[in-house]
C-alpha cells in the first residue's frame, strides 16, 4: 500500500558526463581509458592521444562489472566510440579487479597521485583523497610517483559515507551541506571525530537541545576536517596540497581543513572525483606505448 509520502534521498549526489568540445575527431588516435570503481562512485575517463576526451561519474551499484560497463558506455555516449575502440584500459579503485575489459589493474593510490599530477600540475606534493568509504593521504614527486601514503578505512568517520549519513539524518541535500555549514554566528566545537555512529547520536542530541541544522552541520564538518588533518599530520603536509574525491566538493570541510592546517588547497577547475580514473587513463597510455616499443624490439 502506498503511503503517499515521497521519500527523498538526501545523500544522492549528481551524476555527470562530459565530452571535450576541442577534440572533434578521435578516430586514428590512441584511445585509453581509466575506470575507477570506488565503494560509492564509479568514474570512466577516456583519453585520446594523452588528452582528456570524455568522462562519466556515476553511483556504484551492487555489481561492480555492471558499474564499469555503465560508466564507460555513458562516457562514450554520443561520441560514436565503442568499447572495441579502446586500445588499453586500466582498472583502479576498490573494485578494480571487477572491470571485465581492463587490460591491467593499478592501485588507486598510484592512480590518484598520477591523476592529481595531471589535473593540478607537477607542483602538487600532498594529496588528500576523501572517498566514499576511506580516506587517503598521498605524497608524490614532480612526476606523480608515490613517495608515501597512509589510509583510514577502519571506520566511516572522515569519509563521504559519513557525510551521507548526516545528510539523511538532518534531511539536507548532501550537496548543500558545505554552504549551510557557514550560516552560523560562531564556529561550534566538533562532534565526535572517531566514529560516525557516535557523531550521528551526538548530532541528534544537539538538535534536541535546540541547535540549528546549520550549527550541527558546522560541528560535523569541523569533526571531519579534524579527523583527516590528524591523518595528514602522520607524514606532514608538503605544499602544493590538493584534495580529491567527493568531499573535495564540500566547501564546509575543505575550508576547515585549510584553517586547521594553515595551508590553502589548490583550486580545482574540474570534477575532483576524476583523479583516480584520470591516473588510470594516463597509465593505460604508458603501458600501451611500452608494450608497442617491446613488440618493435626497441
Amino acid at each position, binding site marked *: 500500500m502506498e503511503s503517499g509520502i515521497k521519500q527523498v534521498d538526501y545523500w544522492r549526489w549528481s551524476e555527470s558526463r562530459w565530452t571535450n568540445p576541442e577534440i572533434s575527431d578521435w578516430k586514428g588516435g590512441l584511445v585509453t581509458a581509466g575506470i575507477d570503481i570506488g565503494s560509492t562512485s564509479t568514474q570512466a575517463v577516456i583519453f585520446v592521444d594523452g588528452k582528456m576526451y570524455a568522462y562519466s561519474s556515476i553511483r556504484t551499484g551492487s555489481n561492480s562489472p555492471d558499474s564499469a560497463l555503465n560508466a564507460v558506455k555513458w562516457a562514450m555516449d554520443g561520441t560514436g566510440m565503442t568499447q572495441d575502440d579502446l586500445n588499453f584500459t586500466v582498472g583502479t579503485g576498490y573494485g578494480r579487479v571487477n572491470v571485465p575489459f581492463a587490460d591491467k589493474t593499478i*592501485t588507486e593510490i598510484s592512480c590518484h597521485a598520477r591523476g592529481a599530477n595531471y589535473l593540478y600540475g607537477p607542483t602538487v606534493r600532498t594529496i588528500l583523497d576523501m572517498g566514499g568509504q576511506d580516506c587517503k593521504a598521498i605524497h608524490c614527486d614532480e612526476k606523480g610517483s608515490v613517495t608515501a*601514503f597512509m589510509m*583510514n578505512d577502519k571506520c566511516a568517520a572522515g569519509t563521504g559515507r559519513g557525510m551521507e549519513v548526516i545528510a539523511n539524518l538532518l534531511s539536507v541535500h548532501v550537496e548543500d551541506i558545505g554552504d549551510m555549514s557557514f550560516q552560523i554566528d560562531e564556529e561550534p566545537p566538533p562532534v565526535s571525530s572517531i566514529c560516525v555512529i557516535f557523531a550521528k547520536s551526538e548530532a541528534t542530541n544537539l538538535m534536541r537541545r535546540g541547535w540549528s541544522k546549520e550549527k550541527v552541520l558546522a560541528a560535523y564538518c569541523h569533526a571531519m576536517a579534524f579527523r583527516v588533518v590528524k591523518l595528514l599530520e602522520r607524514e606532514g603536509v608538503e605544499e602544493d596540497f590538493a584534495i580529491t574525491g567527493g568531499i573535495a566538493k564540500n566547501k564546509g570541510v575543505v575550508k576547515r581543513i585549510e584553517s586547521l592546517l594553515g595551508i590553502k588547497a589548490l583550486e580545482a577547475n574540474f570534477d575532483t572525483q576524476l583523479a583516480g580514473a584520470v591516473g588510470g587513463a594516463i597509465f593505460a597510455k604508458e603501458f600501451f606505448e611500452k608494450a608497442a616499443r617491446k613488440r618493435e624490439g626497441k
Partner: protein
Amino acid sequence: MKAHYGYEDGSGSYYITVNTEYCATCDGKPCTDACVQGIFAREEDDFDDEIVVVREDARNSLKSICAACKPQIGGSRSLPCEVSCKQGMIAHSW
C-alpha cells in the same frame, strides 16, 4: 615508498610503516618469516617489483595482533619484524 598501514581509533594510533625502497633487492624477505603472526606478505607492486606489505586482513587489527610481541619491549629485545629488516625499513608507531 613509505607505506603506513594501520588506523587510529579512540584508544590511540596503530601504524606499521614499511619503506619499500629496498624490498625489491632484499633476498628472502626475512620480515615475512620473522613475524609470528604472519602479518607481512610479498606482493607485486604496480610496477612489477616484489615488495612487502602488511596483509589487508590484518591492517585494521594491528593493536591486538601485535600485542603478542609488544611485552618484549622494555628488556633487551626489540620487535622481531623491526630487527629482521637489516635496512631498518620497518617501524611501529606505538
